[in-house]
Structure formats: C-alpha cells, structure tokens
C-alpha cells in the first residue's frame, strides 16, 4: 500500500489516463461512482467506533486513511469546496476522529482517535475559478486539517484535470 492516498473524483477513463500507476507510492480511492451519503446517525462514534455502518465501500475509507502519511484530495472545485462525490466519502469518514472535544487555537475541535493523521493536500481543478472560491477553499482546508488532527495541509488550483494530475508526477 502506497504512502500517499489519492481520493479522486475522476471518471475511470480519466483516472487510468492521468493518475500515477506507481502502486508502491500511491493508493487510489475513486469517489465516483458516488458512495451513499452520511445519514447523520453517529454510529461510527457510538456503536462501531471508527467505521461507518452503511454497508458500501465508503465505510472503508477512514481505516484506509490510517495507513497513509499523506492524503491528496483531487477534486473538482465546487463553490470553493470539495465536489459532492468526494464530500460523500469524507462525510462518511468522521469516525477517523473521536466525538470528544479538545481546545485548539482557542476553538473546539475533535480529539484524534489515532496517534497520527496524514498530511492533507488539496488539488482542485475547475474552469473559471474565482478568487473568492480560492479563498473559501483555503479556509475549508485549514478547518478540515484542524478537525482531522492533520498538522500539515496545502491547497493548489488548476484549470483542468490533466494539469492537476500532472503535479502528482
């Protein structure tokens, strides 16, 4: 299993064409076709700790995260955030952290379940990305990193899938 996990929303044909094939370094998780959306039941916190109870492949993602040093979100930028397919996977993965609160930078955030979290790297692609959307994406990445206990994060923007995927090579 690679050191870097890439959660991407590309169609299979694009993924095959553009994503790295080095399976020693990279693990790939396809967010499309979409997994079911989070039901808001919190059972990943109070019944099956660390694992979503909805029985599809979205339930595996939190555990897969623990095996990697870096998590790359390769996502279409939607309103300055992650695409619905990627977001569906992430919403199902909050079992990666604990329900309990801790104080961080004067704010409440979640306590980590595991002893370390992967670094978060956001690679967004989209047409006519606005400055406002970029600003929102940076704030979102910072907030996600805090809540998932990730100590490092970075955000970059590209105007097409090939350009965004090229940064991985």
């Amino acid at each position, binding site marked *: 299993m690679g050191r870097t996990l890439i959660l991407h929303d590309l169609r299979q044909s694009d993924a095959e064409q553009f994503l790295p094939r080095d399976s020693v370094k990279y693990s790939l998780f396809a967010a499309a076709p*979409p997994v079911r*959306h*989070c*039901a*808001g039941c*919190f*059972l990943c*916190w*109070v*019944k*099956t*700790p*660390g*694992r979503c*109870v909805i029985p599809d492949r979205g339930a595996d993602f*939190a*555990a897969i995260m*623990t*095996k990697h040093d870096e998590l790359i979100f390769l996502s279409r930028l*939607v*309103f*300055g*955030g*992650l*695409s*619905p*397919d990627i*977001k*569906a996977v*992430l*919403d199902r993965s*909050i079992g990666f952290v*604990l*329900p*309990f*609160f801790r104080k961080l930078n004067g*704010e*409440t*955030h979640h*306590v*980590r*379940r*595991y*002893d*370390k979290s992967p670094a978060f790297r956001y690679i967004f692609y989209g047409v006519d990305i*606005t400055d*406002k*959307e970029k*600003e*929102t994406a940076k*704030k*979102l990445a910072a*907030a*996600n990193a805090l*809540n998932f206990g990730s100590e490092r994060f970075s955000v970059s923007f590209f105007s097409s899938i090939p350009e965004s995927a090229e940064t991985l090579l």
Partner: protein
Amino acid sequence: MKIAIMDGSPKNKDSASGLIAAALQAELTPAADCAVCHAASHDRDEIMAALASCDALVFVFPLYVDGIPSHLLRLLDEIQNDVATVAPGAAVYCAVNNGFYEAHQNGVAMELMKNFCVRSGLRWGQGLGVGAGGMVQAAPIGRGPLANLGRALSAFAENIRNGVSADNSFVEPNFPKFLYNMIAHMSWRVQARGNGLKIGRLWRFKISEVDEWVQSGKSSDINKGGK
C-alpha cells in the same frame, strides 16, 4: 410572497435542522406562503417545483466536515444552472448549525453557499450560524438557554420577509460553554454504553491496532449485538 425552506439534514425527523426549519416556517407564516422541503428527497422535479417562483430560498442544514452535507451539495451542484430560471431574482439565505459551541465555525459553509449564489446568478441574503446546534433537540427555541436563538431567528425571518441582504449573524446559547461540552461528552458515553460498547473503545487507538479492531470484523460483531 413565496418562500421555500430546504431542510438539508439527512434525517426525516427530530433533527436540529428540522426543528430550526419548523421554527422559521412558523415565523414566516402567514405573511408568506412558506413550505419546507427535504434535500434528501430523491424527487428532483418535486424539489424544483417547490423552488419555482420563490422570492427567497432558505437552506437550513447541519455543518458536515466544515461544509455542506454531501447530499445537499449534490443538489446545489445539479440545480446551479437552472435555479435562477425557475426562481428569478430569488434571494438565498442559510441557517447552519454545528455541534461545536462556537457558531463562527459555520462561516466557511456560508461562504460556500454565497459562492453557490454567484455561480447560479441568485442574490445573496444572509447566513445565520447556530453554535451548539444539538441543544435545539433538548430545549424549546426562544426560551431559557435558547432565548438567544429565538431572537436571532426572529431577526433572520424579518430579513427574509423583507428580502434584504445583511451581514452574517452568529448565535450561541445562553448556556456556559464548559457545561455544554461536559454534557456532550457525557452523552457520547451514555450512547456508547447503550450500544454495549466498552468505553475504552471510544478512545484512542494506536495505528497498529486498526487491523485488529476496525478491520478484523470485531466492529461488525458489535453491529450484530455482540461484544
């Protein structure tokens, strides 16, 4: 005037968003024709019909991973090119609630909604951030610890009725933060015990334990009612 309130909780009943949506609907009726619909509904035609000719679209949703729940985000993504055609000139408002005490943590989700407005050609109205959202399920809105929320919702409804744009507003309960956090922690423990879970299992794992626990099927044993 016609107003649509979109309940963005994945739950059909008893959600904090559902309760906030109902309180807003009560504030807006009878001055406006105001209906609540669910984003989780799979019937897109029904949703578009609910939004049609509205003067205001009000999205009420829980904060999920610092953003919009994926099912609501999918809906917004799908309707962004058509919504201004069915509801021309409509103003968009959103009330976002989070589990943390601090209401300002809903700010990023409001920005996402504002960016949706720009993309779809609708007018931005206002965002209301509700901290400690879970308290809505424990106390009546407008009274005691949720008196602040009652006032904030009235002011928010007033802006919606008048179709005005305003700065985002953030509201927290009249209830101490340390007590809210303590009760939340207690509640997680009680729920876990109710599921036959040993409390230690709620706590930290070493990554080496993941195989043993999460991936071994023991978690699914618990799901079947085992220990």
